[in-house]
């Protein structure tokens, strides 16, 4: 069915492909649809619900029928054959509904780009090209995006001329001119699929899909463009509209404009003998072009009793029979079209043999993006279609997208829209439109539905197999809203999103209800305009780049020494350092013993650190923390707790006073950013009179915790200039010293109860310090798991693990940290509420399972009875932390228990895997309750 010549295909090269197991050939420039039509393939797919044969219906992304599965080079489901550019080695098969997703990972690269412009022009047909040329000529930064591989739009499928040259040539020259300009970007194979607030639009560019297996691996296959435009011109063209009649889904029934495109652009005859069924002039051009190309056009069936006179005359000159005031009452054939029944009324009539039936019910402006932008749509009675109404954003339609259907009209409209969009930059000549011949236009009333007694084969939505009868069932059931009919029948919900069926559905519903489309309204247009692959949307945000991994300055050492890592927010923290043959339990017990009996070190760099500076810094911290900070002496350190206004614990950490007006606050790892925001919020909104500045220094410092009875000895060796004795360097003080030759700030604080030092150096020096500590050969590195065990043995809570936003400092057994003297602090007022002093509040306690080897799962609930009563079972609380302790020689847990501080010594039960495990409540401080070990 390939013509001898013509078309925008490269006949010098032959591409081989397979469809449903058969070998075919095509040429560069073909789509899979055009190559299959050239190969004589009529049935491309089978309908999803009724199993009816379906052929090529359109020549673009509005295709409802010819949906295929790509198998090679990489499986892709449900692509319209009309949008698949042909490549060598393509293997595809027909589909009956859903396709299959690849089971193997997609090896291709996908990426995304942000772009900005003064004017975004969507569509490079005559209107879009004219608009882009006008806007660029006015000096605007322009992006022109078009979904086809070459610019021209409708010009590619017609013999029309612009400025005296064939339309496609003009389009190519105009695009080339635009691409030569410094601030203009022409995007081919790019579909703008979403239009959001603030003129933010998203497009997908198909960059190497058309190369098949020859696509270079380093080039992103598809690219998502995130475009912010000051002004948008929508030159998205129009989709031809089908007519509902019996058998209108048979292979061989095709939109008239599509047939014309196959002839002109692809050099393919979509049939041998054609009937044209139309309600307007545009299908006459298709009929004449097909006749010129060698198709026998048996008849033009025009619903109008008075077709345009000049078009009618040209048809007759060509020897085409014109049946005015007639309709096609049925398309017939076994598997494909073989004859067309034509009559003056809705039923019966004369049979005409044909293998091709061209249909044109009129044209619908592609208003999807305009509607997505928030613009309203208006039903235009004269055009019989929806056109853009009021816009809500800086957007204007141009050309057919705005209801202008003649070529010179589109060129003029586009040029004017481009000049307007370029705004004050536009010079006097910017809007000068390219010229083309004015065609005859005749009145064309909207025509939707051929009346009949039986509507069961009048298809409205070809992809969803929805017929006029289905819609009548919906309206018969009492549905009155087109939105409801859509959901009831599924019309318009297939992956073509009803591009050809949407307005037809509205019209059939309106007809059934005896109202008009204008009154009925239409369904809502939503992004995406066409299906976009998840791979494209995910882009490079996969694998290691999916989410940032934050690491400390010591990370390389941890990796090199076999640490396993724990995720703490985005941080990777060493969890434990197993030696060969060790499991986690063994490694953690060993690390714990080292810290309690010898010396061990941990990377504590992830703690949040904030410099708080200013004459009112002490006052500020007094208000933030529950305890007094302003009384802290320079050179000293104090532990503190922050609460929310409701009195619940927000965060904890240490505060060190560096100078009279200078404090350094530490926060928990996960709350570093939150606490800084919290401070800024109070300073800016509640206490602007306080003279305080806060600056994050979390990553300025690397911090190493040196822990254990021998830590003093190790520190003394590394810092010979530092007096390290308990008398010279007391608990909760800090000193400046050179440690391993590096200027450091050393704090004597402990999160384990052992003698311990925290050594801070700039993060540049972190690895140096750590290596020097490890080079002593005395120090065992330990990770977060050991840290958790050590602190839990001492009953030190971890905010976010042992607290959950419903826990006060008193509940944690830390009444001592809440000042009774301070006039005010955040949360103070809440501590006078009856609720915060209830005796049955959940309080932090220790738990000892009666079986000392049994490890309670964290989260386990606690009950008071040895057998479970009928539900609802009274719950006393739950386990928040649970570990094996080397120091205690047994397992233990921390738990929040109702009235827990009064239950010490009680036996409770923990339901675990169907049995009730007896546990004894103890103080939350299980190890060294006298605090004898902190001085070593």
């Amino acid at each position, binding site marked *: 069915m390939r013509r001898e010549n013509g078309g925008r295909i490269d006949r010098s090269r032959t591409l081989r492909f397979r469809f449903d197991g058969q070998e075919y050939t095509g040429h560069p420039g073909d789509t899979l649809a055009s190559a299959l039509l050239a190969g004589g393939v009529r049935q491309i797919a089978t309908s999803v619900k009724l199993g009816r044969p379906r052929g090529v219906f359109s020549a673009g992304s509005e295709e409802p029928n010819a949906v295929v599965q790509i198998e090679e080079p990489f499986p892709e489901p449900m692509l319209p054959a009309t949008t698949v550019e042909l490549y060598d080695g393509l293997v595809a098969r027909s589909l009956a509904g859903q396709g299959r997703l690849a089971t193997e990972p997609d090896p291709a690269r996908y990426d995304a780009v942000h772009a900005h412009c003064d004017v975004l022009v969507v569509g490079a047909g005559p209107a879009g090209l004219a608009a882009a040329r006008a806007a660029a000529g006015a000096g605007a930064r322009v992006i022109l995006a078009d979904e086809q591989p070459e610019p021209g739009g409708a010009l590619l499928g017609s013999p029309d001329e612009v400025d005296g040259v064939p339309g496609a040539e003009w389009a190519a020259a105009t695009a080339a001119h635009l691409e030569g300009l410094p601030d203009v970007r022409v995007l081919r194979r790019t579909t703008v699929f979403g239009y959001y607030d603030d003129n933010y639009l998203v497009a997908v560019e198909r960059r190497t899909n058309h190369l098949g297996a020859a696509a270079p691996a380093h080039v992103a296959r598809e690219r998502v463009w995130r475009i912010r435009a000051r002004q948008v011109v929508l030159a998205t063209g129009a989709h031809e509209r089908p007519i509902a009649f019996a058998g209108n889904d048979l292979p061989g029934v095709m939109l008239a404009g599509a047939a014309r495109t196959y002839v002109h652009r692809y050099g393919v005859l979509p049939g041998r003998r054609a009937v044209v069924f139309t309600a307007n002039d545009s299908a006459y051009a298709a009929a004449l072009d097909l006749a010129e190309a060698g198709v026998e056009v048996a008849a033009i069936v025009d619903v109008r009793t008075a077709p345009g006179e000049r078009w009618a005359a040209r048809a007759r000159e060509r020897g085409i029979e014109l049946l005015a005031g007639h309709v096609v009452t049925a398309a017939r054939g076994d598997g494909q079209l073989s004859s067309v029944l034509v009559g003056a009324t809705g039923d019966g009539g004369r049979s005409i043999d044909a293998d091709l039936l061209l249909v044109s019910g009129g044209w619908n402006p592609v208003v999807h993006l305009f509607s997505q932008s928030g613009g309203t749509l208006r039903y235009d009675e004269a055009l019989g279609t929806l056109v853009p109404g009021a816009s809500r954003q800086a957007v204007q339609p141009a050309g057919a997208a705005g209801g202008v259907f003649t070529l010179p009209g589109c060129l003029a409209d586009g040029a004017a829209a481009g000049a307007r969009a370029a705004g004050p930059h536009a010079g006097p000549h910017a809007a000068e439109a390219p010229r083309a011949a004015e065609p005859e236009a005749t009145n064309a009333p909207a025509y939707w539905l051929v009346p009949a007694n039986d509507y069961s084969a009048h298809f409205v939505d070809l992809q969803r197999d929805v017929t006029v009868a289905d819609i009548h069932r919906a309206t018969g059931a009492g549905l009155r809203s087109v939105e409801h009919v859509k959901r009831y029948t599924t019309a318009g919900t297939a992956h073509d999103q009803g591009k050809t069926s949407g307005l037809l559905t509205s019209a059939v519903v309106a007809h059934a209800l005896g109202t008009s489309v204008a009154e009925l309204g239409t369904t809502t247009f939503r992004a995406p305009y066409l299906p976009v692959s998840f791979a494209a949307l995910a882009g490079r945000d996969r694998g290691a780049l999916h989410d940032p991994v934050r690491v400390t300055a010591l990370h390389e050492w941890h990796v090199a020494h076999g640490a396993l890592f724990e995720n703490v927010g985005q941080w990777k923290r060493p969890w434990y350092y197993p030696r060969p043959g060790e499991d986690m339990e063994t490694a953690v017990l060993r690390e714990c013993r080292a810290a309690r009996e010898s010396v061990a070190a941990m990377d504590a760099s992830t703690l949040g650190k904030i410099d708080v500076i200013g004459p009112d810094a002490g006052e500020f911290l007094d208000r933030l923390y529950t305890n007094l900070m302003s009384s802290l002496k320079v050179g000293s350190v104090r532990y503190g707790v922050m609460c929310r206004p409701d009195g619940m614990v927000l965060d904890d950490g240490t505060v060190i006073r560096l100078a009279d007006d200078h404090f350094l606050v530490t926060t928990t790892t996960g709350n570093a950013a939150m606490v800084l925001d919290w401070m800024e919020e109070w300073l800016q909104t509640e206490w602007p009179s306080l003279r305080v500045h806060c600056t994050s220094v979390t990553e300025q410092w690397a911090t190493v915790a040196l822990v254990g009875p021998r830590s003093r000895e190790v520190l003394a060796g590394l810092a010979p200039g530092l007096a390290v004795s308990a008398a010279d360097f007391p608990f909760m003080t800090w000193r400046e010293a050179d440690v391993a030759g590096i200027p450091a700030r050393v704090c004597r604080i402990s999160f384990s109860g052992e003698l311990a030092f925290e050594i801070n150096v700039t993060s*540049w020096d972190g690895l140096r310090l750590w290596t020097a500590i490890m080079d002593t050969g005395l120090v065992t590195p330990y990770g977060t798991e050991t840290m958790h065990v050590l602190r839990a043995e001492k009953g030190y809570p971890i905010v976010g693990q042992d607290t959950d936003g419903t826990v006060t400092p008193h509940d944690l057994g830390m009444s001592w940290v809440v000042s009774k003297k301070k006039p005010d602090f955040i949360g103070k007022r809440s501590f006078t509420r009856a609720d915060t002093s209830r005796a049955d509040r959940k309080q932090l306690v220790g738990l000892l399972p009666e079986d000392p080897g049994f490890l309670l799962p964290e989260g386990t609930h606690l009950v008071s009875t040895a057998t479970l009563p009928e539900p609802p079972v009274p719950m006393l609380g739950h386990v928040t932390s649970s570990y094996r302790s080397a120091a205690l020689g047994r397992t233990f847990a921390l738990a929040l228990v109702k009235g827990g501080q009064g239950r010490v010594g009680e036996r409770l039960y923990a339901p675990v895997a169907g049995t009730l495990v007896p546990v004894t409540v103890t103080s939350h401080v299980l190890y060294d309750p006298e605090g004898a070990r902190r001085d070593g």
Partner: protein
Amino acid sequence: MAERRSPAAAHADRFEAASRGEGLRLAELPFLTHVNVRVDPASPAAGDIADVLGAPLPEEPCTAVTAASDITVAWLGPDEWLVVAPEGYQPELLRKALGERHGSVVDVSAQRTTLLVAGPHARDLLAHGCALDLHPSVFGPGRCAQTTLARAQVVLLPRQDGFLVLVRSSFAAYMAEWLLDAATEYVT
């Protein structure tokens, strides 16, 4: 381990390899001095700090001023600036200029590291992950921005030949990996 180490040191070789073509230059500029300054811009202290810097503290949002001594002062907020100075610059000079007056001068040199993204494709590269308009007519020398690049917070400083990307030290490895991956199409 006798030497100090910059956050992207492990990526130096791959940055160099990616910079061999004409299109792109990637490098860490390690150990630059970064100082966070907070002070009332209308105060005499602000003027004294500016005198020491040799450049005024810019008051227009999202602008930066570069002094003759290769010191850049970037606006971070109505009372906050980031001073980017060569390695070895003494923050103490600014602390002295502030004196006992209200304000803060905090050495944050190791808080972030500085990555250079330069060459003809520098803007294309950053556009893969930065939502701002980086066109020289909008974001040329004299501007600055606190924004996100990919999924990391950065301070962006445009230069004649490209951009400085100031990224938190803990994010430096992620940022380096992201930049190298984004550069895939520009280095071959």
